[in-house]
């Protein structure tokens, strides 16, 4: 009987452990059809200088490529009848210079795009409203776990705080640009391309670089439902210790846009649809139509939104956490009698080598080869010119 009872207990424990254990795995659905539509994307800000409108086409789910639409005629017109023509810059980009007096708060702007097929697409008028300053951007070091990564991550969660006592807008969007410092771990000792070059050196310092990228994801919030125009601790991006962003120093630039109610619906819709959690209590996805319509052919649909928004900015820095931050591995291939440098094929030239540091600190003349990125930080796409804002 005793054995039976133990067995029973075991059964219950197994049952309980397995209960509710949702499992999530990557899945690539087979999507046969795709809808080819024009996409117009642009935010006219209150910043003087170059402003950009992007025109592209949708691509199919499996490729996910960016398909530029290059031959369009793009103009912006304000409610005073001023027309600002945009220049074709290739890669779907259209640019125009704006000068003092061109951009005024309270003035409304609209976009017109004549596409390659001759169809005319227009936005409605959007009023330029100033954005309040960002009160603060904070970073909190905290763990994060999701259904996709149940084992959990460690890193910084960024938050934004803002308020607009003037009540110019109740709808906000943020876009972020991140910059981080990273290092090439090895110091170049020699180069081999069939013969030794002990005097080889890169033209400048390639040990320390900075990389800047747009932060993916869409972030919006509104104070529509609350009595004061204040937002506190709105979640922005999360930076984990699983990339080397936090290895040396990390900086986040937050750009805040003041939106119209209509623009908010658009951006918030996109935000929800790219942050699904797979529950059956989620809204059904649908086509999010922006404010671009085809005036020459009402049957033709275009995606995207043209908005006129004031912008404010805030930059913050974070230092490395005490936890280990991983970085791309650099493993040397030790050169010795059994692995002579002469065995390297020509396709591997040039071979970069460093001197192995002994654990004791002493140097014995032992060389190892490694990939160029382990010597030259530019290889990973950053710049070795220190950005202006990078002050210590």
């Amino acid at each position, binding site marked *: 009987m005793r054995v039976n009872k133990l067995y029973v207990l075991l*059964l219950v424990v*197994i*049952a*309980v*452990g*397995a*209960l*509710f*254990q949702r*499992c999530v*795995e*990557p899945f*690539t*659905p087979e*999507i046969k*059809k*795709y*809808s080819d*539509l024009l*996409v117009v*994307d642009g935010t006219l800000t209150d910043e003087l200088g170059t402003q950009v409108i*992007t025109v*592209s*086409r*949708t*691509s199919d*789910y499996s*490729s*996910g490529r960016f398909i530029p639409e290059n031959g369009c005629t793009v103009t912006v017109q304000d409610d005073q009848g001023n027309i600002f023509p945009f220049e074709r810059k290739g890669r779907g980009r259209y640019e125009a210079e704006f000068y003092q007096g061109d951009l005024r708060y309270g003035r409304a702007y609209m976009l017109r795009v004549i596409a390659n097929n001759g169809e005319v697409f227009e936005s409605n008028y959007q009023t330029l409203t100033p954005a309040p300053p960002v009160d603060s951007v904070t970073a909190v070091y905290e763990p994060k*776990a999701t*259904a*996709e990564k149940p084992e959990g991550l460690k890193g910084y969660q960024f938050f934004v705080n803002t308020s607009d006592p003037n009540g110019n807008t109740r709808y906000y969007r943020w876009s972020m640009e991140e910059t981080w410092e990273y290092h090439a771990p090895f110091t170049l000792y020699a180069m081999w391309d069939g013969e030794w070059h002990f005097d080889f050196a890169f033209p400048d310092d390639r040990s320390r670089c900075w990389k800047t990228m747009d932060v*993916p*994801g869409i972030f919006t919030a509104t104070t529509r*439902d*609350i*009595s*004061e125009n*204040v937002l*506190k601790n709105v979640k922005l991006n999360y930076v984990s210790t699983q990339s080397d962003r936090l290895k040396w120093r990390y900086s986040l630039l937050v750009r805040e846009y003041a939106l119209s109610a209509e623009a908010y619906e658009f951006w918030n*819709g*996109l935000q*929800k*649809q*790219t*942050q*699904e*959690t*797979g*529950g*059956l*209590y*989620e*809204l*059904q*996805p*649908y*086509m*999010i139509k922006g404010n671009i319509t085809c005036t020459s052919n009402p049957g033709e649909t275009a995606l*995207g939104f043209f908005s006129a928004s004031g912008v404010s900015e805030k930059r913050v820095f974070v230092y490395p956490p005490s936890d280990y931050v991983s970085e791309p591995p650099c493993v040397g291939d030790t050169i010795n009698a059994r692995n002579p440098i002469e065995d390297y094929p020509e396709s591997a030239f040039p071979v970069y080598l460093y001197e192995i540091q002994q654990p004791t600190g002493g140097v014995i003349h032992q060389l190892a080869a490694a990939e160029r990125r382990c010597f030259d930080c530019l290889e990973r796409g950053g710049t070795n010119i220190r950005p202006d804002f990078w002050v210590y």
Partner: protein
Amino acid sequence: MRITSIIWGIVMMCMLVPELRAQNQDNDIVFSGDYNGLTFEQFVSKVESQQEVHFYYRKDWVQKIQLDHASGSDLSMREVLHRAFLGTDLRFYIDAYRDIYVMKGRDMVTALPDKLIEASGGKSRKGGITDVEKRYLEGRKEKKNKTIVFGREHIKKPNERVYLTGRVTNAESGEPLVGATFYVEQLKDGVVSDAQGYYRLVVPPGKYTLQLGSMGMQKQVYNLQIWQNAHYNFQFEKDIIPLKEVVIEANKFHNVRGTQMGFQRLDVKAIKEIPVVMGESDLLEVARMLPGVQSVGEGSSGLNVRGSPADQNLFYINRVPVFNTSHLFGFFSAFNPDIVRDFSFYKSNIPARFGGRLASIFDISTREGNSKKFTARGGISPITGRLSVEGPLVKNKGSFVIGGRSTYSDWILRRLKDPDLKNSNAGFYDIATNFSLEANRNNHIQLFGYYSHDRFTLSTNSHFKYSNKGGSLLWRHLFNERFTGTFSGAFGEYSYANTEEQDPLNAYTKNYSIGHYELKSDFDYNVAPNHLLRFGLSAIYYDLDRGALNPYGNESLRYYTNLGREYGTEDALYLSDEWKIGANLTVDAGIRYSYYAYLGPNKVRNYYPDAPLDENTVVDTVSYKSGDIIQSYHGPEWRLALNYLVGQNSSVKLSYNRMRQYLFMLSNTVALSPNDQWKLTDSHISPQIGDQFSAGFYRNFPDKHLETSIEAYYKKANHLVEYKNGADLIGNRWVETDVVQGKQDAYGLELMLRKTAGKLNGWISYTYSHARVKVDSKFPEDQINSGKEYPANYDIPHSVNVVTNYRLSRRVSFSGNMVYYTGRPITYPSAIYYIDGKKVLNYSLRNEYRLPDYFRVDLSVNIEGNLVAKKLAHSSWMVGVYNLTGRKNAYSVYFKNVDGNIQGYKQSIFGVPILTLTWNFKLGNYASE
């Protein structure tokens, strides 16, 4: 006719042994007259002069006996004598020839069980044998027919009909038996007992063979001689040798003979034998195994019946409407299996007495409790514990049952890996009680109360609480043999409270409640032998509080928004006639007329005509006073069903019905979510009206215990309520600005093969179905899917369910399920594009794709405790494996922007086999009720 006669009688009996052994003491004589106050001798002479009966007794034994309670039109000789001899040591025996023997001291043993004599060495054990032993032993004997006679034989007039009415109960517990079948061999016709166990048989006077059957009970065959209207209560003994005939025995000819289509009645035994995920039998889980019933995902609340949304089902438990039928995200149903006796499920032609929802009616009945002794039962599974107690209120006449259930699930959730669930907590409890009293044979009263409560917290900042409560009082009155009335008052209330505190500035708490108060009377009247009229009326009052959004916490800046209260009434009148035309054709035609009024006080907006309803098209807002009728809707609901018998075991049925629905669920998610709200039809949102046509062919193979059916249906409905794309329903006071109405269109074919008895029983069903929705408007913002038709979320073309139960021995049985269905429709992105350098998805046609197909096998073993007859309690173990193959069935597929790339994910709820263990107990032995 004195003592010598007795001896003679015994001698005669000995000579007639083979015949007599077959008789037992169930023979009875029904007679009439007033015998109150007579001495026994006077009684004997009076009865012998009127009836063809002979008494054998000794004068000195009966001198002090006086008759009382012996007057009326259909007295039972057994009852009269039993009462007369109460307090004496006299016994009696009635044989098949209407001879009555009166004896002193002991029963006249006319048929000693052979086994008993052997076992006890030829003499009876001291103290006799227990009931169970007796039934066990008798159960092994071949049974012959008992004879019951009502009235005196006479030459019947043409077209003369007599009525036999009464109630059918379980002999051991006194609980009524529902769906017991009465089949008259000679007429090839029969009836079925109703939800309170009442039956009414209409036949020409004559001699018949009457077969009685009821699920899990011993079959009975009577020689019925009926010459006058009579009332008789039948009792069924439990079938204690369940090797031959197990469960699901009811509706055997009902399937073929009744006009009802798309109808299922399952009792709790069938429900309890199906393996389920949480180790506790679940009524709704079983309902999902029936053809034509789907749900959008496992562990999700809401059923989709024949291509209809989940808000088109009406659940009644003892006439109490239940608005939220799920516990714990839908993994449990709100109905405690220990309390439920059975449920009837209507999905085709819904009887005229029901209305209010388009797709189906679930009519759940609770048990009445044991009217003979106190007993208890309960069980423990990994998630829940339950206990119920029952017993007599007035012995043999009234009983009560009270049952409760609660979870201890918090500790389970805390042990999970999933971060969303780990920080969650959840729990529920429910309690139900039923009192029932059979005041006399014409009046039956039942009082029922129900309360259920759920709470859960998701990831520490989203809290939900909801509860159902209800009560009902039912009085059933027999006016006469041909006319019965049922009067009931019931209420059901559902309420929830939801607190969101993720963002302290936006934190709010919101409450909601709906009340449904109903008065109803139902009559059935056999106006002529071949006409059964059913008619009645009902009045429902709805009181709905859409609640208010209140700021929550000190930091919250959330605006206070009151969403308003609304009131409505729904009144209905119905009449239907079940008309037997000739031997083979039965028509059940009826009409229900419903009238709905949306009542003040309330504020209603007016909008410009010919414009979409939104903020910009408001003309003005009108205030209505209390009692004002703001808007009314009414109309007839036709019900027609036709059954044509083809031979004895086959029939063809056709039906048409129209339904009207005056309230709907505000939900724009795939599955029902706990904060979905019911809403009344109002000035801007019209009632849903649906029509359904069904046709079916039914064939039974009684010798093989097989039932087969094939049913086809087509249905369409107007004014289906859908939501504008991206609508946020939580804080919208003016629902009409977010709602659009469309058309629903569904058809399907359902095949079912069911084995109702034997060691192996169960069913296989296959459903082919098609469900489409179309929401079109001249205003593009009021269209869904650009106004084109699209598959509903619950459009499941192919579905196969296999439910089996195999009884290896009396102590061990196996159950298994197999479920297969086409994956539900899902919207996949049709393209990717870039906005502000970020990858986003474009969705175009709704529900154009499907999830991978669903397949699951479950298995369970039920092991009963020992079969010792005399013991305090009996227990059983159930070991179940859910999802035996461990298949990772897709619950949903979703897309997420991960580090700048769009990644698709497939989510499954149970990707591994799940083992559960449940322990159940009841007081008494294996066979006790």
